């Protein structure tokens, strides 16, 4: 099936939660809704599910207008960020409930529940009650209930956010595999850019109820159409430095000058916001045209094998994403190298006007 949201507005008590969203999801696609808390992800999913009708606009499924069709008559599933299960039913009955309500024969239900439970590694827990399970197991149960019926549309509203990161990693991997074999539209809301990248598929970037960009995940990541999109879709956030472009050079903070590369020269001279990804800033110069900056360390966040180094220059803060483990003390002086050839440029309206060339890339053979 295909799902088309046509010019959706949703206003609650005079406050717009969703404004003017137009989005078409293709059959069999996996879609990520990326945005910060309160960006409108949950609201949008509720509209897609039919839990609420939009204030304005139409929802078209397979060419049919279903805007006012109740959730019970749409074939959807949803997994929430809280672990939502029926506490009075066992795990088996929880998972089986959609099929039981659809009056499937007992033997077929047994078989299906067995398959799903095995897929989610909870086959040994079928006789337990949800509150006796750990968080991860509870969420697996909820997923089982969502997956057991062949829903046309499956919605995941930050399903992993309340789990430990290692479980998150495992479940995320499993999820990707689960959907490869299915022919339904999956929509997955998250606040984490890395989760979007790990899940692949398409990504829609939401900000303050508006759709900023929609496209294949990698493309949205590499070619954000605006400053917000770029900030939203990078973790740590892309560094933005305001600067002035003249015919020959770029000036930051009225004191840092460097010549700009040929591509940037094509832009009109003027004020721009320049973006550079955290992973492109380095502690050693990579190229001759790298700009050396004197900074002080705020904090080095270390995650397993990576370091996110927060530093501040006299006028602007920067974040570096370094591989490997590096420890620094607070306020330690440091020199970082700013890659002048890997700059994004955004005009003052926030639109992308320049995207740096990509260096190679690994593709699946």
């Amino acid at each position, binding site marked *: 099936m295909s799902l088309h949201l046509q010019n959706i507005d949703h206003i609650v008590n005079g406050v717009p939660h969703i404004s003017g969203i137009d989005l078409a999801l293709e059959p069999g696609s996996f879609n990520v809704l990326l945005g*910060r*808390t309160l960006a409108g992800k949950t609201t949008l999913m509720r509209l897609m599910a039919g839990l609420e009708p939009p204030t304005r606009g139409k929802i078209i499924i397979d060419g049919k207008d279903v805007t006012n069709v109740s959730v019970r008559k749409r074939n959807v599933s949803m997994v929430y960020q809280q672990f939502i299960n029926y506490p009075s039913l066992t795990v088996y009955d929880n998972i089986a409930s959609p099929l039981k309500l659809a009056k499937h024969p007992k033997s077929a239900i047994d078989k299906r529940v067995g398959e799903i439970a095995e897929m989610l590694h909870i086959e040994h827990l079928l006789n337990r009650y949800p509150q006796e399970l*750990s*968080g991860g197991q509870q969420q697996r149960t909820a997923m089982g209930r969502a997956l057991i019926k062949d829903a046309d549309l499956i919605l995941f509203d930050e399903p992993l956010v309340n789990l*430990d*990161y*290692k479980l998150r*990693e495992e479940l995320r991997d499993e999820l990707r595999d689960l959907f490869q074999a299915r022919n339904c539209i999956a929509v997955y809301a998250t*606040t984490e*850019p*890395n989760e979007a*990248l*790990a899940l*692949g598929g398409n990504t829609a970037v939401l900000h303050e109820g508006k759709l900023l960009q929609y496209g294949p995940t*990698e493309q949205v*990541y590499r070619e954000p159409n605006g400053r917000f999109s770029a900030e939203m879709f*990078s973790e740590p956030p892309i560094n933005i430095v305001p600067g002035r472009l003249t015919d020959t050079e770029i000036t930051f903070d009225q004191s840092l000058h460097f010549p700009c590369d040929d591509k940037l020269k094509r832009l009109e001279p003027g004020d721009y916001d320049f973006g550079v*990804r*955290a*992973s492109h800033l380095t502690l050693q110069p990579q190229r001759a045209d790298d700009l050396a900056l004197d900074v002080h360390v*705020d*904090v*080095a*966040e*270390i*995650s*397993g*094998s990576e370091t*996110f180094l*927060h530093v501040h220059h006299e006028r602007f803060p920067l974040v570096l*994403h370094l*591989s490997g*483990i590096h*420890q620094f*003390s*607070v306020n330690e002086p440091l020199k970082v190298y700013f890659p002048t050839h890997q700059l994004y440029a955004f005009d003052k309206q926030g639109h992308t006007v320049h995207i740096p060339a*990509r*260096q*190679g*890339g*690994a*593709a*699946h*053979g």
Partner: protein
Amino acid sequence: MAEITLKGLAHSYEKTPKGAADYAIRQMDHVWHQGGAYALLGPSGCGKSTLLNIISGLLEPSEGDVLFDGQRVNELPPEERNIAQVFQFPVIYDTMTVFDNLAFPLRNMNTPEYRVKPKVLEVADILELTSLLDRKAKNLTADEKQKVSMGRGLVRDDVTAILFDEPLTVIDPQLKWKLRRKLKEIHERFNITMIYVTHDQLEASTFADKIAVMYEGQVVQFGTPRELFERPAHTFVGYFIGSPGMNFMAVEYRDDQVMFGTQPLPVSEQMKHAVANASSANAIANDISYNNIKLGIRPEFIAIASNPTADSVPIQVTSVQDLGTYSLLTFKLNEQTFKARLPEGHPPVGEAAFAHFDAAHVALYIDEYLVEAGHE
């Protein structure tokens, strides 16, 4: 000043524990040095909160001793231990102002007001709470509340250790790094032992100089973030630290080769000897062909190439995920799934490729614990 020593410590919530499974904390010895920044890292239920409560005195261990500077404090209640604790959910006194909250511990010790005020102002300044001092604590945001509860520990001159129990759980993701910075700054400024409990590797490695990784009631490794990454002392550490975790291969010594199933593995001579020794030692000790010998390699140390190189093994690539700053490659070797991390800009690889394991980073695990094979 406090050096905290745990001696032969064990704890069970059962009155008469029957087996190892009844213990929340199994027999352990450990020393936290004065002024260190430590983290207790582990999945939920590993016993880390229990351990923290034993150190703070909210819980009395069923076996062993807790020593503060060599003094046994097992029975001392928290109020007599010169420690402060910051809880997962901010605990503040709703009806008081921020100032009164910070002054509360001092006033409870009958500190004269003329000494309370400068101390509170000093701590408020460090925590950037000065502008909020007149506000009712109830209406603060979560991160401000958490700073207030930290401040209540810092105002006391007698506090020698601050314990943190997952303090950033309720903090907005965008604000977390600022609070982490504040924590680091405070640690560098005050000479206070800090112990930070968390299940998140990022929190632990960012905060701590040394991390104790707990698994099933035991500290399986105590080391710097770098050590945890480069030389995991236990397979659990390898798995738990790093995203994704370490790849493990159950190997055996056969025909003068280290075999992973049917695949001979190119390893260093030392490693080969170590595996050979372990195989025979195990076989003798257990009288059966029982083996629990594993080689571990981090995804970061696997190089992938389209053509065979020296010491590479043929693999089947199943997928490549572009994660922006790097790509994650999943491959199959001997029917087992492996992960490898490719740097940004890595040339594309086909379905049939070759993997090279960096010999310096292949680690040997016997019965889940690291055994040094002796690198040159």
